């Protein structure tokens, strides 16, 4: 596979995050090129999820910079980052359990109509927009094959359905970049196929993905570029076929267990 566009949409520049004495992310630098699927792999505790939390604004870096579309987002709160089109999912899905699947989708609308306290009281001011949002929600639910569950509670979904709903919900924001944290972990084979198909389809229409994944065969098949993290920093990066044979990667993955 070739990298569609060489320009980085997301750039980490010597990002540091430590928890007490533990350097979870240690001068980590890498680029995510626009229009690509980039895989982020590494052993447990390598700092992958922490890196996502730093990019998404949940954590502030101790040092270094994170740039999205040329601007620093290192100090922005998560909501402002999301509204700029950089949306993430969670390793353990965070679904609104006591809201229906449809409402989970509606929640994520980037349209502010009716979300202000005063306008909310005046139904005609937002009713049309709600209908439009609802149509979009249904289309996306259909896209991930969850439309029949629209009126079920989020809390009643299976683990795989939750992963799908999280992706679908993120799509409501019409993101340019999506960060997926282990999208296929604990997902049944059928749903895994739907997920991967949809990721590829979205990528073909221009969405950039950064995906943390433990299923190496799968991620190598779909990604343009792979970054291997170990002890908080990338130890290898490049085309999947090359990275897979890199001795440092073999060492990182096997070293602990063999030694």
């Amino acid at each position, binding site marked *: 596979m070739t990298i569609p566009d060489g320009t980085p949409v997301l750039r980490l520049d010597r990002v540091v995050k430590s928890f007490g004495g533990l350097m979870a992310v240690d001068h980590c630098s890498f680029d995510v090129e626009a229009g690509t699927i980039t895989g982020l792999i590494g052993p447990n505790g390598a700092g992958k999820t922490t890196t996502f939390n730093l990019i*998404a604004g949940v954590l502030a870096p101790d040092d270094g910079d994170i740039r999205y579309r040329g601007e620093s987002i290192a100090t922005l709160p998560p*909501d402002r980052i999301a509204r700029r089109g950089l949306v993430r999912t969670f390793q353990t899905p*965070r679904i609104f359990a006591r809201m*229906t699947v449809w409402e989970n989708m509606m*929640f994520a609308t980037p349209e502010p109509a009716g979300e202000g306290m005063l306008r909310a009281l005046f*139904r005609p001011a937002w009713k049309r927009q*709600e209908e439009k949002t609802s149509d979009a929600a249904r289309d996306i639910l259909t896209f991930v094959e969850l439309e029949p569950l629209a009126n079920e509670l989020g809390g009643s979904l299976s683990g795989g359905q939750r992963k799908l709903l999280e992706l679908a919900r993120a799509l409501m*924001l019409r993101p340019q970049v999506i960060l997926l944290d282990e999208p296929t972990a604990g997902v049944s084979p059928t749903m895994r196929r739907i997920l991967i198909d949809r990721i590829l389809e979205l990528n073909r229409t221009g969405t950039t993905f950064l995906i943390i994944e433990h299923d190496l065969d799968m991620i190598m098949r779909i990604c343009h570029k792979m970054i291997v993290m170990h002890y908080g920093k990338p130890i290898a990066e490049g085309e999947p076929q090359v990275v897979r044979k890199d001795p440092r990667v073999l060492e990182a993955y096997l070293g602990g267990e063999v030694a």
Partner: protein
Amino acid sequence: MTVEWIPFLTLLGTLALIYSLLALGLNLHYGYTGLLNFGHVAFFAAGAFASALATLPPPGSAAYQELGARYQIGFGWPLPVGMALAAVAGGALALLIGATSVRLTSHYLAIATFAMAEIFHSFLSNEEWLTQGVYGISVVPQPLKGTVIPVSQYPYFYLLFTAITVFALLFLTQRLTESPFGRVLRGVREDELAARSLGKNTPRVKLQAFTLGGALAGIAGSLWVHFIGAVHVGQFVPLITFQVWLAVLMGGAGNNLGVVFGAFILVAFRESTRFLNNIPLLDRFTAANPTFVPSLRFVIIGLLLVAIIRFFPDGVLPERHRKAIGTRQDRRLS
């Protein structure tokens, strides 16, 4: 002792409506937004004092002389102004408390709100120039009483006035919660981090909900103080907060009609305990022990809560789940 039913039911209805308003406020906090507020009584007190001081005849005025009162602040404004100021006072206090503590995670928020309410209570106790301390103010105006409305008819008039006010606010609250704004609140309740990661400014939304709920409790304070015709700090004990919690949990958190219903159950049971004196076998105990009925009152309310939680874990009227609105085709057909 024969029971005078009509006056009793009038009293009960008025109290239940005032508790309904308190419950609607707490429901915005907890039922919709998931904020554990254990200091609700403070907003109630803020509204009560604000409305009392706004409407009391100014010191030095003829009316003041006539009352023989000794309070130090009074503006002599009409009741609607008092109610508006009560909303502002309840909302402002909530904004103040919220601004410092609404970012805390749930259990810390519970402790912080409880503590802040206690601080506010001791503020009211100590600032005697404002509140007359433990003596309170026993001449709070009851508008139209004895002039336009005969004294004997006043309770019915006040019930009607309270009912109109509370139902209007119930309508507005329902409007607000069944809107995209309400949906944002519920998302924050379910998972604040997810809500924030989906682009919502959750700290601001929480503060808005907290302020609105505080304003509703403030208006409840106004309705209460002109109903009783007196105000003193001793009325505003944490027990009120817990009773409002009971109303919300019994009626159905996240359902506005539910919590109103819960307030009616609560007040009906609480006020009915006065009939314990009339039960033939119990009167031996009640005659000998004046604290018997008040104690039994809480036992009964406790049992009621246990029974309701057992049979209706989400309250008598649980939160309704919002179904998807029609598709394009549905709309074209209609």
